[in-house]
Structure formats: C-alpha cells, structure tokens
C-alpha cells in the first residue's frame, strides 16, 4: 500500500495525551471539592456560610488558608478596608451606608464592566459617534464617580462572564442591569438598587389573543437567557426560547418564529419601539438593578451605596432616568429607601443540570450527523464538479469552496438565519443550523474528496475501461471505494471538528451543548465543574467516533478480508 497522503496523525491523539488531559480535569474537580470541604472549618462558626463558588476563579489558592484579598495591580490597589482585619462578608447595616469610615486608595480609578453590544439603553456606543459611550448606566456611573470624587474607566465585557471577570479583578464593579439572584448572592456583593424595573410583554401589532402572560400558554415566548424574565417563565412553566441577543429575539418576533417577547421594560422601550410591535398589557413583576462587587471589597461597597443614596436623594438619578424615559413613580422608592424587590433564583440542581446537558448533547449529535450528511453529499458533488465538470461549473464550484472556507461560519449562520425568512422560507432554528453547518463543511469535505479522488491512479480508470466498465460504474465500483479509504482519516478529523463547531449554533439560539453549558454555568457560577462535565459529554461522543473510524479504516486496509466474494 502506498502511504496514505491525506492521513493525519492529529486525528489519532496518542492515548497518553488524552489521559493527561482527563487527569488534569479530574484534579481540578477534586481541588474544587476539597476547597469546599475545608471552607466551613476555617471560618468562625458565627459567620454566614461562605459561598463555595467564590473560589472557582482562584483554584490555585491554598484551600485551607482564609481568603486573602486579590493581589493589587499597579492601577488598582487593594480595595479591602484596611481597618477590617476580618476579611469576611459582614452584612453592612443600612445605617452605616451613609457614613464614611475609610478612604479609597489614592489614585483609585473605578473600573466598571458591562456588555455594550446591543446594550441600549443601558450602556452602548452612540450610533452617531461609535467612540462615544452613552446610556443611563454610563451616566449613573459618572454620577457615582462625581459623588466619590474618583474617575471611572469602562471595561467592555461579555454578559455571560461578567461575574467571573469581576472575581478575576478585570474590573471592580458590574453595572449592567444586573439583577440580584440568590446564586449571585453566594459569589458577589450587591449594592443598593439604582433602578426598579418591571417586565414588559411585547407582541406583534396584529396579535389579538395575547393580552397577558397567561395567554401565552402553548405559545413560544422569547427572552434573554438567565434573566428575571427567563426565571419568571421557567417558574410559570411557559415554553420559551432563551436568546443571547435581544435584537435577535425581537427580529424573530417580527418574522413569526416566536409569538411574544418578555423582557425588562427598558429593553422593550428601546428595542420594541417599532410600529410592527405593541405592548401586551402594562409592565409587571418588579425587580431591581444593582451594582455587583467583590465580597471582600467592603469599603467600596460602602462608598457605592453611599453614592447611590446621594444621587437618589439629590435628584441626579431622577434627572438621568427621566432623560432616558425610564422614570416612573416606583423609582421614588429609591430615594425613600423603601424599594422592595425580590431576589429571584434559578433552581439549580445537579440532576436537572445533567438532564439538560444530556438533552443538549442529543441535539448536538443531531446537528453534527445532519450537517455531516449534507457536507458529505454536497462535498462529493462539488469535488466531482471541480474535477470532471465543464469549465463554468468548475468555476462555480471553486467560488463555492472559497466563499464558504473564507468567511466565518458564525457570519454564514446568522446570514442564513435572517435571510431565509426574507425569501419566504421559515424553518426551525435547528434545521437552519444543520443546513448552515452542512454548507460550510461541504466546502472542506469537497477538498478532501477532490484530493482523495485525484490520488487514485489514472490506470485504475483505464483498467476498468478496458474491461468495458462505463464511467459511472467505474466511479461507483472502483474509484469511489478507493478514494473513500484515502479520505476516511481526514473525514474523521472533520467530523470531530464539526462536532465541536456545532457550538456556533448558540448564535441562533439552538440549545446545543455549548449553549447549555454557558447558560447553566452563568446561572450557577459553577463554571469549572460544569465545564468538566460538558467536556466529558463531548468526549463521550467524539472518542467512540474516532475509535469506530479507526476500526473501519483497518478493515478497509486488511489484506486478508475473510469475507465471501461479495463484491
């Protein structure tokens, strides 16, 4: 046998590498468990139980030592109150929040993190001037900084990872429509609320049936994942689709993929501001936006709460909220200090998480197999087009390959998602994902098949020809089986890659494995254990696949196939 020109050593990771990796994961998992086990004993019993998840971002710190403040960086000296020797989370009595018993370090810059993409009206870059950051939260941060006499600096972040970023000391506070939840309370400290929000249900202009949330039974509602709205829908057992981006949710409402959108009033105010939509009833179900901080930064919390009180009482907050059309009578409670709101929680349980990951894994399998089927069939056609078709078809095939290989799959998927309904095709998200992935991978497959077909010597065609075999029969019986043998290793490679690439389907809200991980982890803050679990799910699918492919390969190359002469 000539050496297989396409075989790629990378598709067979040596077993010891895999083991090493698994071992590392396992070690991480163990360290997390031990640190949890150690924590309660290392603290005075009078204290509140310490959140376990708060250690997730610093797995290297010795578990038995009491928590030390994060090491100061040149720009940000430690924020822990120097007078407080107990580095713990003492609930601060509200009376204290107006008194100042410490000084922020000299030269301190308040670094605040938020997700500015699609952040209207919270924090976003002005459409008129893309360098200009605007939004009511931006103005609130400025007002707080003014009260405290400190400058501030904005850090662009990703909504899903705001909390871990905060813990990693990327910035000092989160100001991004963050709602207090019991899960987050375990990991970070909350400031006083700076805005009381309510939920707004939005429907299409021509909708007649949906007037309240209860009318949505049996309909599909869109919302952002891991928000007060999604938790409300979950608790009401209503069918919903969790989006990553609110503009996509409203776009889907417009084209009829979903029947209503439930989101915070400020979002609805700016994103549903179109004659195509109308509100279904008044806003309801209140919640609060708070600023998130590290638990050990007690002095900072002090200062921030003080500043919020100040801007609420001196009318600055009202002026800002009025400017952004967000002011209503409920907000008066902020100044009065009587604001009541609920701390919601997502019911996180391991069996539930396991179940959701399992279902997401099944969807991932479906996506991967469906897309690979399309990729193989289309890829073969494109390869044949490139090799044997007329010049014009060949050019078309080349353009296809260059286009799909040369542009990001995420862009292709989004393009497909938005453009199909415009030409009157409405198909489910998962089908869009399969087609999108299939089209993309067909470009790669075609090149695998083209080289595989070209690697078959011309003599094979001649040998079949002199036996009287026509071109199609020759291709089917002689060329294809040999090319398949050559193409199998790179194909396996591509399939494993495709398995992982299914994660881009999150962009169009398909609940596959990576999406499930993001959602579960950002809701529970258990990034590491869930990450390990998710990786195991992926491995549980890809390792058997590689194994089967290798078996098949060996069988195809066995010089002594003890089968009957079935051709």
């Amino acid at each position: 046998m000539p050496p297989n020109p396409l075989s790629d050593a990378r598709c067979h990771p040596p077993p010891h590498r895999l083991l090493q990796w698994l071992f590392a994961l396992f070690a991480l998992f163990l360290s997390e468990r031990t640190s949890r086990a150690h924590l309660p004993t290392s603290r005075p019993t009078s204290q509140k139980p310490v959140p376990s998840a708060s250690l997730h971002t610093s797995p290297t710190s010795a578990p038995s030592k009491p928590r030390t403040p994060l090491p100061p960086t040149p720009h940000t000296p430690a924020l822990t109150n120097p007078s407080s020797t107990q580095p713990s989370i003492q609930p601060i009595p509200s009376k204290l929040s107006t008194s100042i018993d410490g000084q922020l370090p000299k030269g301190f810059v308040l670094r605040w993190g938020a997700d500015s993409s699609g952040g209207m009206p919270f924090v976003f870059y002005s459409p008129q001037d893309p360098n200009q950051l605007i939004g009511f939260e931006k103005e609130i941060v400025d007002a707080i900084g003014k009260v405290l006499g400190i400058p501030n600096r904005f850090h662009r972040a990703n909504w899903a990872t705001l909390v871990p970023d905060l813990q990693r000391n990327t910035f000092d506070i989160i100001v991004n429509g963050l709602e207090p939840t019991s899960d987050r309370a375990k990991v970070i400290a909350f400031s006083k609320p700076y805005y009381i929000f309510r939920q707004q249900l939005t429907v299409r202009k021509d909708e007649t049936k949906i007037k309240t949330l209860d009318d949505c039974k049996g309909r599909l509602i869109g919302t952002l994942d891991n928000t007060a709205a999604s938790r409300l829908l979950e608790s009401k057992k209503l069918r919903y689709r969790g989006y990553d981006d609110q503009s996509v949710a409203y776009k889907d409402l417009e084209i009829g993929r979903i029947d209503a959108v439930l989101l915070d009033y400020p979002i609805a105010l700016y994103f549903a501001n179109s004659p195509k939509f109308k509100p279904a009833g008044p806003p309801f179900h209140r919640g609060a936006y708070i600023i998130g901080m590290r638990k050990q930064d007690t002095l900072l919390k002090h200062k921030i709460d003080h500043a919020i009180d100040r801007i609420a009482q001196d009318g600055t907050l009202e002026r800002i909220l009025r400017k952004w059309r967000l002011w209503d009578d409920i907000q008066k409670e902020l100044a009065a200090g009587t604001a009541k709101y609920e701390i919601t929680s997502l019911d996180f349980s391991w069996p539930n998480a396991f179940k959701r990951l399992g279902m997401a894994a099944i969807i991932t399998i479906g996506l991967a197999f469906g897309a690979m089927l399309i990729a193989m069939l289309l890829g073969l056609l494109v390869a044949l087009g490139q090799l044997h078709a007329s010049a014009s078809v060949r050019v078309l095939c080349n353009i296809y390959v260059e286009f799909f290989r040369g542009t990001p799959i995420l862009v292709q998927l989004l393009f497909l998602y938005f453009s199909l309904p415009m030409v009157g095709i409405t198909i489910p998200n998962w089908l869009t994902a399969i087609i999108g992935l299939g089209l993309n991978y067909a470009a790669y497959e075609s090149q695998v098949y083209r080289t595989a077909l070209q690697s078959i010597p011309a003599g094979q065609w001649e040998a079949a020809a002199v036996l009287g075999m026509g071109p199609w029969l020759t291709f089917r019986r002689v060329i294809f089986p040999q090319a398949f043998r050559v193409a199998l290793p790179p194909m396996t490679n591509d399939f494993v890659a495709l398995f992982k690439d299914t994660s881009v389907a999150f962009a169009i809200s398909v609940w596959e494995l990576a999406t499930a991980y993001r959602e579960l982890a950002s809701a529970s803050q258990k990034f590491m254990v869930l990450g390990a679990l998710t990786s195991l799910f992926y491995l549980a699918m890809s390792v058997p696949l590689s194994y089967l492919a290798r078996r098949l390969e060996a069988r195809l190359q066995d010089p002594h196939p003890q089968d009957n002469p079935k051709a």
Partner: protein
Amino acid sequence: MIHVSGLEKFFQGKRVLHGLNVDIPRGSALGIIGGSGSGKTTLMRCINGLLRFEQGQVRCGDVDLLPTLSEKDYKKRLQSLRRQVGMVFQHLYLFPHKTALQNVIEAPLYVANISRDQAIAEGERWLERFGIAHTAHRRPEALSGGEQQRVAIIRALMMKPKILFLDEPTSALDPKRSSDVREIFNEFVRQGSTLVLVTHSIRFLRGLADQILYMESGEVVESGSAEQVLDAPKDPRTRAFLEYA
C-alpha cells in the same frame, strides 16, 4: 483482425509514431519488440482505443477508429470495441480494494451481467488453472508480483475477448510459470483469438508469436515471421537489439 495503416501519433507536438502499417490476421499472435521508448506501448494503446491518434486509420475487430471522428462517435465505437478486446497492463492496475477473486469477477458481473454463482465458479476455475487458487480471498497487496500478474491476466480472460493486448505479461514470472502461461495463450490463439504482446522476453515469444515486429524511435524497423526476425534478422539494428535480449 487488426489493420493499421499510416498511423501517426503526436505527444505535445512531437511525433512519436511515424506512419505505421501493421496487419494481424485472426487467430494469430503478434509480438512487438524494441527498446524502451521505441513506441511499442503507444502503438498498442492507439490500436485498442486508449489513445487517439492524429493520422491514419485503425481497424480493430469490426471497429474503425479514425482521427476525424467526433468525441461522441469515438466513444460510441469504443463501447463496441471494448466488448471485443481485453488488455493486461504492464503495471497491472489491479483493484487494490478487492480480493483476487473479486478482481476477476467484477466485469463479468457488472458488464457481462452473468450470475454471481457462475462468475465465481469460472473465476475459481481460472485461478486454479493458473495455480493461484489460494489467493482468491486476498487483496493484491498480499500477493507476490507473479501472483498479481496472473490475476491481471485472468481478469482480462474472464471477459472472453476476441483480441487480447498484453504489455509485458510475464515480467514477474519464473521460467516454469512463464511457460505455463504461454501454453494458455497458445490455446487462446488456437481457438481463433488474436494476441498482441509487447515484451522484452524473446524467450517467451518463441513458440507463441507468429509474427514479430521490431520498433525503434516510433518506426517499424523490421517485421516478419517469428522465425525469420528472431533467427535471421535482416536489419543490423534488429540484430544489434537481439544480441542484448
């Protein structure tokens, strides 16, 4: 059975066959000899339709091949040509993904459409006759060069061609095997079939070829009966070649 006149073949503007004339009667064997690059194989490929040529004409079996034919007409004529001729390549081109038996029954099954049982029975009989029955369920890579060569010959014979082209058919066979195979070809010719073989093995040609054609640089230097050309060559170039053979 085969009639070639004025055959000229060009490769990239370079003439490699210079107006050849060849006649091979039915039921006879023609041996083509000559040094490497003398055009033996090219001539054979032009006759059996694997190569198109620029000048002259070829009649092979009852099919006329002309350079003036359109691609479509040419392909149509090739179809009927393929039913009459077989070929064994110098490099064999066995199907590497099929066992020896699968190799030889492929065309009978899918081109001649005979039944699987009959094809297998026939294939096994041939393998037996060539002394390689034990290779039936092995793929070519597990076969010796001589075994592979015999499988390739059987693959061609299974289609019962009226004309058989052989390009160095016995290069990998030992003298005993070579002699056995020659006997099979002799029988093939006695039954009225026609054989064209290109070879370096003068020894193999003796007692098989009726006519010999000696080529050099795309030209026929000498042709005649086997005895005459091999034992009393007229042209000094033929003589020189045979001295080394």
